[in-house]
Structures are given as structure tokens and as C-alpha cells.
């Protein structure tokens, strides 16, 4: 995700901003500077239109009817799956499972992959994980006696690879780590982690919620076993997400949620499960949301994911240096490889007080523990203020952030 000035020659952020109606408003009497993209991104008009158009012209249940609308809805819904497959370069749409989001993706895995494990088997997560990549594994551990181990991070917020390696034993079955940390912005060395896991015959889940919107993801090149991400963090609708899983695993794993759609035939004696990927998708799916995610992927591809990564890296560098110029501000998470997430503490002003004063000046940031209590504890803070950038942010947003922080400093002096 390094900056490359060539990829940026055609990128015009002001044109891009025109695609996002929500950005053009005042909040509390000030220009909106939306810097809470790691929590949820905004949507371009093209995504809003695609969902709208679907409901106005093509909605019916998918895979059910012989009638025209059902066929149209199915084509759009499955067409979106193909767009997602291409976006992450999965080998087949059989490996692309729709979920409600990253959280459900990981819960599916904890249940279905978890069913292949026995008491005493081990799963390794990292200290910087989001709660959604901790709690499902803890639930599994409580249910089955699987052991959860935690790989430490260093003071820059980087995973300590040697210590992760030292945790691996003959009982280790899975390493589950964030591709990019939501709380710190750290980009983990996922290729090294997969290589390490391969040596020991261990499977790897990458939580890509913060990575997929900000840089190219190629699951075949990464060679991870599982990759999870959410639509709403990448300009798509809420309520839709993806679990990529290698087919060899899907063939071994039992289904997660039971119901219609995931079966071919049901009697009280026997259930014949559907083919992949539908075996893991029970009930009427989020059809419009999947179609909207497909439209979001079209939109991102049109700009170019490498262009997005390069531009965001430029913004990150600009914002980081501007913030470091403010006396008393300390950035939490200073990894060498970082995505455009800046967590910080500021003098002894509580993050919530910072958040309220910034909101007053139109600046939306996230404050608190970012659903990552363990890593907050590691840094000895109850929470941080976090500015997270997207490709539709501009220098004016960063200037506004800096200016509003100076107001906060003055106020709490």
C-alpha cells in the first residue's frame, strides 16, 4: 500500500467527493469532515442508485421462482458474487459466502471450522484483534475446550512474529489475525504469517474488515485459508459481508445456520444439503445489500484500488505529520506499515471530550476503545480518539481536524 505518484496522476479527490451526497452538508453549523471511516464508510450515489433500482425494477426472492423477477433478482445477486470473487481473486464463486458482515463471517467459522476441532486443540489470535475476532473464539473455547492463545504486540503496535511462531505447537489448528488493525492501523505481515502457518500445517483466517476497502486483496496470492470482510466499510450497504474460504475446508465443514436455501431436499429422516456456496447461506439472503456491494466494488474498481491505496497513504502521511505538530498529542500505533488510521491521545483530555468538541466543529471521529479492549490495556489507555481516512477525504478535512484539536486544547487548558 505504498504511495506511487504515477497511480495518482488521474485521481481528483474533488470529483470523487461529488459522488458522495452525504459529504456535502453542515453539521452543527460547520462543514462536515467525516473521519470515522474505519467504523463505517459512506456510499457513492452509484451504490444508492443500484439498491434503489433493484427494488424498483427487479425485486423477488432469489433461487426460488420460475418467474421473471425472481430470475432477474437471482442474476443480479449472483452477479454481485462474481464481482466479489474477482475483487479478491478467489478461484471460484463456490468459495465466496455471503454473510451479514465480518462478525458473522467469523462466527460462522468459529462454529463450522470449530466443529472440526477437539478439546486441547489451539487457536492463536493477536493482542490487537477486534472483539469480533476474539469473542467467537472464546465462545468456542468455552463450548469445546479448545485453547485460545494470544500473540503479543510491540510498543509500536506491531505483531511480534517470532513470539507468534513460538506459540505454535502440534495442537495449533488456526491462526486468526487482522489484516489491518482497526484500533491502530497496523498492517500485519500476513504473507509471512501464512508462510509460517504453512510450515506447521496450520490454517489462517485473515480479518480483512479494515483492509479490503483500502488496498488490493488477492486471496490466492496470500494463500490464506479464510478471509472475512464487510460491505459497509467499503462503500457498500450495511448487513452484507463475505467469508472467503478455500473449498477444501468448505467441503469438510458442517453448515452453520440451518433453514431454507441451504438444503436441496428435506425429510424427517434425512437432509440433503445444497451445493457450495449456498450450503452456508440459510434463509432469504440480503439480496439488495449484495447487489449494492457489487455496485460498490464496481465503483472502487473504476477509481482503481491501487490508486485509492496510494492516495490514502499520501493523506495518512500528511495527517500524521500535521497531528505530530500539535504539542501534547501522542499517536498510539506507530507501525512501519500502516493503513490510514490514526489513533491518538491528547494531553490528558479524555477522548470523549475531544469527540464532543470536534463534533461541534463538524469533525466526526471515533472515540473510545474501538472494540479492542486488550490492545487498549496494552497501551495503558482506556481509549483513544481515532481519525480514519478514506479516499474521499481531502486536505481540508485534515486541516479542519487539526484546527478543531487546537480549539479543544484551548478549552481544556
Amino acid at each position, binding site marked *: 500500500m505504498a504511495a506511487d505518484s504515477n497511480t495518482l496522476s488521474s485521481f481528483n479527490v474533488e470529483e470523487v467527493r461529488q459522488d458522495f451526497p452525504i459529504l456535502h452538508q453542515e*453539521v*452543527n*453549523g460547520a462543514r462536515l469532515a467525516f473521519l470515522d471511516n474505519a467504523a463505517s464508510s459512506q456510499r457513492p450515489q452509484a451504490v444508492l442508485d443500484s439498491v434503489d433500482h433493484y427494488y424498483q425494477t427487479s425485486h423477488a426472492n432469489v433461487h426460488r421462482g420460475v418467474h421473471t423477477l425472481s430470475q432477474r433478482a437471482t442474476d443480479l445477486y449472483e452477479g454481485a458474487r462474481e464481482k466479489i470473487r474477482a475483487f479478491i481473486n478467489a478461484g471460484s464463486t463456490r468459495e465466496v459466502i455471503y454473510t451479514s458482515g465480518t462478525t458473522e463471517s467469523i462466527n460462522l467459522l468459529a462454529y463450522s471450522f470449530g466443529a472440526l476441532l477437539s478439546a486441547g486443540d489451539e487457536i492463536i489470535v493477536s493482542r490487537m484483534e477486534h472483539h469480533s475476532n476474539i469473542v467467537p473464539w472464546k465462545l468456542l473455547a468455552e463450548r469445546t475446550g479448545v485453547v485460545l492463545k494470544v500473540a503479543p504486540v510491540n510498543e509500536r503496535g506491531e505483531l511480534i512474529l517470532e513470539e507468534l511462531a513460538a506459540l505454535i505447537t502440534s495442537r495449533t489448528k488456526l491462526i486468526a489475525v487482522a489484516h489491518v488493525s482497526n484500533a491502530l492501523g497496523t498492517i500485519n505481515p500476513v504473507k509471512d504469517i501464512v508462510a509460517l502457518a504453512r510450515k506447521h500445517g496450520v490454517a489462517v483466517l485473515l480479518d480483512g474488515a479494515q483492509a479490503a476497502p483500502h488496498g488490493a486483496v488477492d486471496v490466492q496470492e496470500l494463500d490464506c485459508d479464510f478471509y472475512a470482510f464487510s460491505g459497509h466499510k467499503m462503500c457498500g450497504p450495511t448487513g452484507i459481508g463475505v467469508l472467503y474460504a478455500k473449498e477444501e475446508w468448505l467441503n469438510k465443514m458442517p453448515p452453520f445456520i440451518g433453514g431454507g436455501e441451504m438444503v436441496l431436499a428435506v425429510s424427517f429422516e434425512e437432509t440433503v444439503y445444497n451445493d457450495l456456496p449456498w450450503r452456508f447461506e440459510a434463509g432469504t439472503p440480503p439480496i439488495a445489500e449484495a447487489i449494492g456491494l457489487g455496485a460498490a466494488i464496481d465503483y472502487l474498481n473504476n477509481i482503481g484500488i491501487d490508486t485509492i491505496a496510494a492516495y490514502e497513504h499520501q493523506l495518512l502521511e500528511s495527517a500524521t505529520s500535521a497531528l505530530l505538530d500539535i504539542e501534547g498529542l501522542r499517536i498510539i500505533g506507530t507501525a512501519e506499515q500502516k493503513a490510514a488510521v490514526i489513533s491518538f491521545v491528547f494531553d490528558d*483530555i*479524555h*477522548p*470523549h*471530550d475531544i469527540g*464532543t*468538541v470536534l*463534533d*461541534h466543529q463538524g469533525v466526526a471521529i471515533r*472515540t*473510545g*476503545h474501538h472494540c479492542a479492549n486488550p490492545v*487498549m490495556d496494552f497501551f495503558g489507555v*482506556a*481509549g483513544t480518539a481515532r481519525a480514519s481516512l478514506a479516499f474521499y477525504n481531502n486536505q481540508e478535512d485534515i486541516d479542519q481536524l487539526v484546527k478543531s484539536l487546537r480549539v479543544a486544547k484551548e*478549552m*481544556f487548558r
Partner: protein
Amino acid sequence: MNTADDLTQVYQQVVLEHSRKPKHFGRLENATHQAEGFNPLCGDKVSLQLEIAGDQIKAAGHETTGCAICMASASMMTDALGDSTVQEATDLAAAIDAMLNNEQSADKLPGMPLDALEGVKAYRSRIKCATLPWRSLEAALQSPVTAGDAASVTTE
């Protein structure tokens, strides 16, 4: 929409003073009642101790880690409890709750300058910051130290 006035109302001088130099900060030696309050959403914590003789509150002390609003609220509260009876403290906690939940205006409140907390009403996401110490008070009044561990209460 919140205005600049709302902001100066919530972070008015008296609130900032209390948050910078909280009163009655620290543990009481002769505490008879205590409770721990916790807001899991933001990590704010209030450890509240009371010394009660008969129905009279003799002293109140707190150890609070939290935002300016939570700290100021705990400071003002312990200041206001000085020589209240248990009944008065209970009524005050209920009145603050009613005020912050928009059921009653601040001018009905005894023990000014607690009305300074009223500015928080403009910020729905911050009301729990102000109520946490009061929830801890309600719990502490019911929790004699001899009963063992301090009672715990959360904003959720």
C-alpha cells in the same frame, strides 16, 4: 443541531474547574458504604465511598477515571452530599436522573451548582457520563462495607 452555546454550556467554567481539580478525590478511611460504577462503553470508572452514621452522610470520597463530565459530576456530587441525610441523597440522585432525562428542570434541584450538569442534556451520547456517579451513589447507599465486596453498577 448543537450550537457553540451548547458547547460552552456543557463545558462551562464550573464543570471544567471540577474536572481539573475534583473535590473529595481519594478513599475514605472510615467508609461504611461503597460501590463501583463502570461505563463499559467508554471505560469510565467511579469508585465511591461514603461514611454514614445513623441516617446522616458524614463524608463522601471518590476515585474517578473518566471524561471531564463524569469527573465534574462525581466532584459536584460528593460536594453536595456533605451533610445530607440518606433520604436527601436518595432524593437528589432521583432528581438529577429526572433532570438529565428531561423529566424535570434543574431549578427544582437543591444544592446548586448541580444545575451546571444540565448542559449535558443537549448531548444524548454523553448523558451517561454525568449519571454514572449518581448510579454509583444509589448503589453505595444500599451497600454497607461489612457486606463484603463493594457493590458494582454499570450504566448499561
